[in-house]
């Protein structure tokens, strides 16, 4: 985050923070982000946030199933067909391995997608707007832009305070 360019509304109550988000959205003030110690589902709804990870997970699972079946078919039917007890080489019991490995591919690739999309990696340096969001504070971050005059800044300040902000900081 660039310095000296943000208004931070600090709350100590999740419901107050949610109300503030609602008020800001109503007044068409762009919220850059909301930092909280635990997920606030109402904030996602108010900010109309969506994620497409579920669709990707489904794709990974489907690809996993197909490729595992492909491997089993290739190894047991094409590459080295081994007949025992007159049973078919293309066996129904492949389902078990396919089932388990579908889950494995779904889990691993969902995690990787999440890490890539969120740009998280071990040892990444972070710059939190307020480290207290890791403990007990909820912070709404509003980016200042050129169009924002004194009056608007004042209005944002009031909105935050009226919704129950314990502090309004600038950074």
């Amino acid at each position: 985050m660039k310095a000296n360019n943000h208004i931070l509304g600090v709350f100590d109550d999740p419901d107050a923070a949610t109300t503030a988000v609602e008020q800001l959205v109503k007044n068409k003030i762009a919220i850059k982000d909301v930092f909280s110690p635990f997920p606030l589902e109402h904030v996602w709804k108010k900010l109309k946030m969506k994620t497409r990870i579920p669709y990707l997970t489904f794709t990974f699972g489907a690809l996993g199933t197909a490729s595992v079946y492909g491997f089993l078919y290739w190894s047991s039917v094409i590459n080295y067909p081994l007949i025992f007890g007159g049973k078919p080489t293309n066996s129904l019991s492949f389902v078990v391995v396919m089932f388990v490995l579908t889950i494995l591919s779904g889990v691993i690739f969902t995690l990787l997608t999440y890490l890539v999309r969120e740009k998280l990696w071990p040892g990444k340096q972070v710059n939190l707007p307020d480290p207290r969001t890791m403990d007990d504070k909820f912070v709404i971050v509003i980016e200042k832009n050129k169009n924002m005059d004194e009056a608007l800044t004042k209005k944002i300040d009031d909105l935050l305070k009226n919704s129950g902000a314990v502090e309004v900081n600038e950074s």
Partner: protein
Amino acid sequence: MYNAKVRGVLIEGGKTYQDITRDVLRPLDTGKTPLWWWIASFFASAMLVWGVWGFYNTIVNGIGTWGLNNSVSWGWAIINFVWWIGIGHAGTAFSIFLLVLHQRWRTSINRAAEAMTIFAVMAAGMFPLIHMGRIWNGFFIMPYPNTRGPLWDNFNSPLFWDVVAISTYLTASFLFWYVGMMPDFATIREKTTSAIKKKVYGILSFGWLGSARGWLRFETAALLMGGLTAPLVVSVHSIVAMDFAAGVLPGWHSTIFPPFFVIGAIFSGFSMVLTLMIIVRKVYKYEDYVTKGHLDAIARILTFISLIMGVAYITEAFIAWYSDSPYEMYVFFKNRITGPYAFEFWAMISCNAIIPQLFWFKKIRKNITIVFIISIFINIGMWFERFVIVVTSLSKTWLPATWHTYHPTITEIAIYVGTLGFFFLGILLFLRLLPVMAISELKGILKETSSVKKINENESK
């Protein structure tokens, strides 16, 4: 919320968000390593060292150091393997089933239960590895291009399914556990005063921020990973059951095995959670988080599962009689209910199906000491169940000339004790170094659960 009122207050003691952070961080950040930790770790390490001797003896001198014979070719190794896998179902059954079912009371226990899963599954995995004899050829179980044709694994064998299922289960459980800890690592990173801890937990936290979008993606990813892992709970132990059920031995060759094993696994897993959480809440003074209500809920689940276990035992015996197969009849009525293994059989019945029925009484559920003792009985009973299944069926098969009894040797006992040491050492390290409860999840339910308290107070007025 719709389910909070039924359960009552989940976090007692009027905690604030700061209190939660402080309480969970206390053991790993500000507090000194307590004396009991050193003593317990010493005993666990001693057990582990003895187990290493057992491993060494087996590898150097071979499987002949075990008490196995031509008839009983699976002894303590498979018994303990299945026992550990069962315990390993705790975490995932607990945290993921309850996550998918939106049960909020999982929050203070899920982390520890997941840690249990991981160490228990690792302990379980040691038995098949050591039973191979030539452990350095262990990679033969994986399908890889080789110079023998290439000859692939038998993909229709339950033993190969086991390899796939258990390694998948371990991987998926570990990833789910780790992802859940990332926000808590970030909390430690911001709160700790030690530079080294800041660095280490900073690396572990992957640069977690806790922004709204980050939380949305985190929750979605975690729920998906959990939802995907949930069926594994069913598949892993079904596959372990098929190791037996796909064989033709009387007492094993039965369609009841997969569901019976899955239920048994969840039973032993929950009881181990109960055993450990009663100790943890005591030594870490987490009575406000792992409340009597939590223990009560687990005890109720155990009562229900215990009934299912009882029905399964009766069904097995009934079907043995109803099938009119003399071999099945012999196994169940002459070699289990009566005969040389009657003690083990009745120990299993009383520990699994009868003693847990005491949980019907509220007084007993409220008495933590008795709950603890009963949970130990269930752990023992589930061990006997595996003993009964493995040994009674193998010891007396169709030809009386091949009948054999089985006694474990000191090496087998050492390996078993060693895995216990490994498990306890793992749990102790977890208790010392990682956040024992999910900080962010506890904070997430705090407001809801305190409002329940207010509602209750208003109603009583």
